[in-house]
């Protein structure tokens, strides 16, 4: 839209007066007369309330029906024995007790944690590398468009493309491995490989998008710091560790936790490739919940497992708040 490459404005301003992480809430409205509350003012306020109610009504309806009510219902179902057809029977904490002794559940926890560790670990390092490369080399929109492309394609599509590329017999990756004399790998069929494979496939989809988030954070670092460091003869490597990383830390913390929350909910890729197998090696939490509810019709228990997922994500979110609060001062 707007013309690119402005011919050098005098003072490069930081793009955001918005500051870094938490955008300071502006005072709501610069509202009118705080003085005498006349009848006219009261009538106007009443009218304003009515209009506001109209504006908010559709969202409130959606929130109530599709977020709030199902959350309460989900909590209740986790305390029941329910097979979809007969009425739910209240069983107290029985589902949670069962959960403690369910090896498949603990396996799902282990598999999910492994997935998150690999996925987030690799993705964060790569995204940071891409962001820094872009930051130091080019502002090109084209480069940014290319790296974000995979994020626009559905999980299902990405999963299928890699399912094909990683096929044990005629997939191009195994062809390439054979070319350098390695044995073929059954990426989706081998218990040891399946989770790392799915984790890396999703790294491919998300690393560019994550890099753009970090890139936006990098742009908030004042350029004169680099100028000064350069004058002092600092190397790029040194600048990365002494300027970029410390100042990016708050942004990094938030990005890390947001991607982590998404990562815990991995489902699509698993569902269309390994489908939980082989031998439960890819039965991640969300796939287990889906399986319990819709294949085994054990709805009450499925709800209990999803409460656990909810608690994990809330814990992650709390950690996020702590981290960002603690680091707020970094960018001044």
């Amino acid at each position, binding site marked *: 839209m707007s013309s690119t490459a402005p011919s050098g404005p005098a003072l490069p301003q930081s793009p955001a007066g918005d500051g870094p992480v938490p955008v300071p809430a502006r005072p709501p409205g610069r509202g009118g007369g705080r003085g005498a509350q006349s009848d006219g003012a009261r009538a106007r306020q009443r009218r304003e309330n009515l209009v506001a109610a109209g504006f908010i009504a559709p969202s409130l309806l959606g929130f109530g029906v599709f977020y709030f009510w199902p959350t309460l219902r989900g909590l209740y179902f986790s305390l029941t024995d329910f097979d979809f057809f007969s009425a739910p029977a209240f069983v107290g904490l029985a589902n949670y007790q069962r959960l403690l002794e369910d090896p498949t559940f603990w396996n799902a926890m282990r598999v999910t944690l492994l997935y998150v560790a690999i996925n987030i670990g690799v993705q964060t390092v790569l995204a940071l590398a891409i962001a820094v490369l872009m930051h130091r080399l080019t502002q090109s929109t084209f480069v940014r468009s290319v790296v974000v492309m995979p994020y626009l394609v*559905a999980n299902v599509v990405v999963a299928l493309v890699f399912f094909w590329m990683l096929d044990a017999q005629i997939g191009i990756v195994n062809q390439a491995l054979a070319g350098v004399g390695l044995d073929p790998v059954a990426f989706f069929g081998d218990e040891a490989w399946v989770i790392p494979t799915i984790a890396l496939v999703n790294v491919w989809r998300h690393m560019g998008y994550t890099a753009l988030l970090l890139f936006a954070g990098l742009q908030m670092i004042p350029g004169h710091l680099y100028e000064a460091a350069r004058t002092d003869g600092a190397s790029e490597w040194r600048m990365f560790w002494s300027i970029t990383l410390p100042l990016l830390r708050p942004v990094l913390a938030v990005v890390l936790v947001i991607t982590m929350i998404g990562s815990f909910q991995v489902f699509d890729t698993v569902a269309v490739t390994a489908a939980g197998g082989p031998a439960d090696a890819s039965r991640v939490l969300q796939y287990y919940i889906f399986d319990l509810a819709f294949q085994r019709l054990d709805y009450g228990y499925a709800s209990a497992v999803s409460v656990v997922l909810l608690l994990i994500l809330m814990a992650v979110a709390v950690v996020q708040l702590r981290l960002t609060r603690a680091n707020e001062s970094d960018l001044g």
Partner: protein
Amino acid sequence: MAVTTEPSRPAADDTPTGTAGGGGADPGGRVRPRRRPRPTAGRVLAWTALVGIMAITLFPFYWMLRTALSDGSVLATQPSSLLPVEPTTGAFERVFGLATTEEAQAQGGSGAAISFWRYLLNSVLVATVITAGQVVFGAMAAYAFARMRWPGRDAVFFLFLTALMVPPIFTQLPNFLLMRDLGLLNTYPAIILPFFFMTPFAIFFLRQFFLGISSEVEEAARLDGSGHVGTFVRIIVPMSWGPITTLALLQYVLAWNEYFWPLLVGSAQDVRVLTVALGIFRSQTPQGTPDWAGLMAATLVAALPVLLLFAVTSRKIVNSIGFSGIK
């Protein structure tokens, strides 16, 4: 997730553009003044790494195309050929049901009828309606949060914030029951409704933008006798056209790519969207030798509309991916 996408800053000055943050503000991020960089070894290495990453990003897209244009029956004979094997558009014909059963089977297809036109149409319909609802209702709510005073506003806003923390699966199990009890399973409303009225993200995204609009603009409208509705429709929305289209694009992509929910409530043939159809196509492929060419043609069909949309709007989308710390 897209949670950390921020609307462009509203034009504080008179700049009429509502385009996303970058664009004009580009030099803000520039660390050094543009001078011809010396091609040091480090720079060459860095560029090599960046180009390598771009190649890794693009290769699977090429491989989709290469496979889709191959003849499925002979694909296995030259698995490492970088060009299509015996190029043909047969796979696309199979996907759109244009090939006869014999033709399809001759090229390694299953011969089962696949009606991707239908799924494509369903995806367009579902994504369009969802996006329309989210943008219109999201803008209305955002306006009420950003520019109006009413009792309980902050409490309601906080409630909406909490909606971001609840994982979709948690609400989707009970929502499935709700749809079943309403008799809506395998209908468009079931696929659309839970997303239609509100997504917290749309509200936060636009609220952030509306908060930054100078109140003088509004007061001028007020003096002209406009009420809130008039101000919203005639002043705020036109001013915010940039962020609103950005939001619409992002939400369209999300709706287009959704898999879990339509899988739960809309797997029947006549309402099936592309993502669900792909999953089913994959599980229907004959044992032993999946119809890879057909599958890749189908994935291309599913990916292409969004990629084309992106090709037209990439500058806007890319520049709007920023950091606002919306939690």
